């Protein structure tokens, strides 16, 4: 399940959008004990100026991204805009039965997008 992006297209400046991954949708609900799913989220939005510039409390912005946004505003055809990508991620843990009927707890890093940034 994902938030619909209003008005089609990238929809506003670069930020995290809600994306819920349901283990039932993938058909794993019989062997995944918990969680039922998790909020993975995703990044989308414009990285033109001023969105590319560092905002208060936002993720650190790469100078190169600012440079590209400046170049783009001066000469749109030269190089594209920076990309809106995950800037800070969190882990999740999954509890499940494996093929040998063991109860397994696995920890996965970088599974949830907490913040997006222009790169």
């Amino acid at each position, binding site marked *: 399940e994902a938030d619909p992006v209003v008005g089609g297209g990238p929809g506003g400046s670069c930020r995290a959008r809600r994306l819920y991954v349901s283990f039932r949708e993938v058909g794993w609900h019989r062997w995944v004990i918990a969680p039922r799913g998790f909020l993975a989220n995703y990044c989308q939005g414009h990285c033109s100026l001023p969105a590319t510039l560092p905002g208060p409390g936002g993720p650190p912005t790469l100078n190169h991204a600012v440079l590209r946004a400046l170049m783009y505003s001066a000469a749109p055809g030269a190089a594209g805009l920076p990309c809106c990508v995950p800037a800070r991620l969190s882990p999740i843990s999954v509890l499940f039965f494996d093929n040998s009927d063991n*109860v397994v707890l696995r920890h996965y*890093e970088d599974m949830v997008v907490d913040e997006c940034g222009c790169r």
Partner: protein
Amino acid sequence: PAAPGPAAALLQALGLCDAPQGAPKPRPVPPVMWRLFRRRDPQEARVSPGRTPPGATLRRPCHVEELGVAGNIVRHVPDRGTRAGIPESAAAGQCSRWTVVFDLSAVEPTEQPSRARLELRFAAEEAAMGIEGDWELSLAQAAEGTGVGPVLLRQAVVSLGTPVRAELLGAAWSHNTSVPRSLHLVLALRHRATSACVHLAEASLLLVTLDPRLCHPLARLRR
């Protein structure tokens, strides 16, 4: 059949070679696994969905704080043996010995073991009820047939009221070797002062391993 399309890709991303086939035999989830899951899953503890509270202390990746060891996979492996006592020991008027079997074939060669905690629950006969202290647990490798290999571990047991735990890493296999595909052990529990006997009600293994392929160095915190 291999999982089709995106499910296969997600499985691979999760380091699982295939999804368990069919519905597993229903079995209660051991409380220790629930506890570890609840403490470990940030989304369970998060105040608002989708956000790590600013300033939250980052858990060390690939470390199981509750058990104090490195690791990103914890398995609760039930005993596959029959836990029937070994007949010849009972015939000799001694207390029973038991064979326990742990199937560790699900552990991949790249996984490095950091903890292997054997957990035993005993049910004492009437005569042994209330006899505290002075029990001794001994563990040996099972040999072919009903043979018994060398003793791997001897441990004093103070009380039978709580689960008896024994660390196997370094005893049943050495620290820097990969996990064996299966583990056959012979257990015996004796009381030093009396001839009281107990029987083994349940045996399980809590195995912690570290899969380096799923580990990333701690992200550089914001300067």
